């Protein structure tokens, strides 16, 4: 990310200044509150002018986040946050574009876009708040839910299929920054967000964000998370090994690599009237 010019800095902005007046719809104790707070802290730390920030999301509990930030936002349709953000960034490269959503939005209905956003490597920050459940539709299994989780009426015997492995799939698809944070570790999460926003290219931040309502057992996550023992690395082979060993609870930057960033030049050398000549006989 380019350095912010001094002239547009708003030195008085604090984290709370990035919060909008809209009240979240989230349940008490939802991990997404901590993510919202970390986003505002990271923006304040980076001294980003509010109007230069755009947050794009799809559908789901966590996708409600843009309205709670006092910046430009787009709360679009289910699963399509990454394409919408990619179009915005292609057209307006000077903006800091964050993308937020959940595990269903990003890995199920939006799974194809996740793959292609990773390999396109535009300068976007993608924050997935993973609670291993569809909360907004009242508790169905998501791609990251354990196969034997039987508490949804939709899958009374569990899904019976293996879990989606977000960091490993991001690595295979060509993402250039992969990190995992935890809603219960707000300071660590803020730091990861700062690094992700500053990373030039597609930064994928996988956030373990517990659902108090449909997955109360996730209260135990605070005892299960641990710092990533091997990372970070810029070597994809090492990263692949690390992710094979991953128990899903390792926190920190797992992989960071400088890769070519896709961004059109948007530099005009002609006007449409110049093209008439091509067709004249």
């Amino acid at each position, binding site marked *: 990310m380019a350095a912010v010019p001094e002239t547009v800095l708003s030195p008085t902005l604090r984290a709370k200044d990035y919060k909008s007046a809209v009240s979240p719809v989230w349940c008490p104790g939802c991990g997404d509150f901590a993510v919202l707070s970390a986003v505002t802290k990271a923006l304040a730390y980076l001294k980003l002018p509010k109007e230069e920030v755009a947050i*794009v999301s799809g559908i789901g509990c966590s996708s409600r986040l843009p309205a709670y930030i006092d*910046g*430009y936002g787009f*709360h679009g*349709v289910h699963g399509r946050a990454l394409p919408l953000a990619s179009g915005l960034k292609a057209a307006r490269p000077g903006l800091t574009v964050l993308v937020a959503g959940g595990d269903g939005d990003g890995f199920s209905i939006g799974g*194809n*876009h996740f793959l292609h956003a990773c390999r396109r490597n535009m300068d976007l920050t993608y924050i997935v708040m993973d609670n291993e459940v569809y909360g907004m539709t009242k508790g169905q299994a998501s791609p990251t839910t354990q196969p034997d989780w039987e508490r949804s009426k939709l899958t009374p015997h569990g899904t019976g299929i293996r879990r989606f492995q977000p960091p490993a799939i991001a690595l295979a698809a060509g993402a250039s920054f992969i990190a995992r944070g935890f809603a219960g570790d707000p300071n660590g999460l803020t730091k990861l967000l700062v690094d992700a926003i500053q990373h030039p290219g597609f930064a994928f931040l996988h956030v373990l964000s517990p659902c108090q309502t449909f997955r109360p057992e996730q209260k135990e996550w605070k005892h299960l998370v641990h710092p990533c023992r091997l990372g970070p690395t810029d070597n994809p082979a090492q990263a692949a090994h690390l992710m094979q060993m991953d128990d899903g609870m390792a926190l920190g930057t797992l992989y960071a690599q400088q890769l070519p960033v896709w961004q059109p030049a948007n530099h005009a050398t002609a006007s449409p009237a110049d093209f008439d000549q091509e067709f*004249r*006989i």
Partner: protein
Amino acid sequence: MDNPETHARATCIAITGSGGSGAVTTGLILLAAVARAGHYGLLTRSAGPQIRGGESAAMVRFGPRRVECMGDRFDILVGLDWSNVDRFVDELPLDARSLILTDAKGEPVPEVLTRSGAAVRQLPLKEIADGVADGRLNMVALGTLGALAGLPLSALEHGARTTIGTKGGNLLQGALQCIGAGYRLTLDGADAAGDAPISLASAERWNISGNEAAGLGALRGGVRFVAAYPITPASEMLEWLAPHLELVGGSLLQAEDELASVNMIIGASFGGVPSLTATSGPGLSLMMEGLGLAVASETPVVVANVQRGGPSTGIPTKSEQSDLNIALYGLHGDAPHLVLAALSIPDCALTFQWAVRLAEHLQATAIVLSDQLLGQSRAIVDPPAQFRGALERWVEHKPADDYRRYAVTADGISPMTLPGTPAGMYTADGLEHGPKGTPSSMARDHQAQLAKRLRKLRDFDYGPQWGEVRGTGPNCLLTWGSAAGAVFEAAERLTGAGIPTRAVALRLIAPLPQRDLAQALDGVSTILVVEQNQGGQLFHYLHAEQALPPWARSLARPGPLPLKPGEIVQACSEVD
């Protein structure tokens, strides 16, 4: 009214052959040659499903007046060979006045063609080509064909130079020799039109395809971002746009699918850049949820739908006007949007330019219908018209303290800030919202926002671009999109035959320009609604809008055969 007889002076030629025989190249050179000779012209093509090669046919119609559709029959059919010609028989109507031209030593002309009563002329095309270095049979045939059609040799040579002159080797030299030898074959060395200066039309003429014209119109309208997924027959529009967008400071992003492309253009347009995607029926189906988001969030977008035969994969390489229903009704919820249709190859430029300006000004979704017949055909035409109106997006650069993105205004259009504008922050949302954009499920917000989104389209004055009206007779042919070409010619023929007929073609289909259409239909005593689909999609829409009298009739015929003026004239006589 133009003299209907003059269309009889338009010559119709078809060239058919297997993959590699050069049927389409021959057609392209012929089109350039007729342009050089001062004619108007039209080149349509038909291809089989093969990825590469395979049989194809090129159809060229030319004459001294505008050519807006293929004729009812062909004067000359050139068979470079007869491989799989049975696949094209329906598209190559011949009669006893037609001439079939083919190689003396090739296969015999198939009975499916000779049963028309057409004369057959077998000439030593291959023998001549074999005697020329880099000689090709199709170029010998082109020379003969040009002579028979009364074109000057120099025009054919010019056509070859401009069409294949940039290709390497001695291809051009061989072609020129073959064209000359073929030309002399029927005329014992004399030039049909002499080498006198060609009667080049004094006015400027263009050689352009519908997909190119659509791309040009989009750029003229201000489009600077395109995201799209390849699909037949829209891909050439994208292939033209990609390098040209770069030159004007824009970009084209090849998306992973149509769900992505429609959301990408919504994102770019939210950022303030006029944006478009191009697709065909299956892709449009995939985009519908995204278009609802564009409508709800009032983000301007334009979608080009270059229609093909449907439903499902249908007939990707051939034309049909069967996506009007999805364009009109495909969005869920109450989602007012614009539906426009280009009326001819050059009109693709005007219609797309206008559509972009309307979408921007009205912060609306515009679906613009073209089709394979317009998109993949080329024509020699007068320079495409430009839209001269000033329709801008209401961008708020200095929002007031009480800025409301979705303010309920009298005309329904609200101020829009762009990211980067201080104090203008808002979250665009597919959730229903209040005037500030904050999500709301309250009845009063829903009703106010729905009403505003309807009002801004319904109450806007669209001006004279709504459609084309030709003629004043009491009989009316009413149509939309690419069918307009055949309808205009049919109306002329009917009028010439003593049945005064007017033609009305809709460029703006939704919202329906009720007042203008009523005026255009004033005083008519018969109406035939003409369209190339099975269900009579325009006919039923117009009835639903109460825009037709109960005695109006429908001529709805599915593709992929293009509508011909003769069948429309025939249908009129059946109505009477």
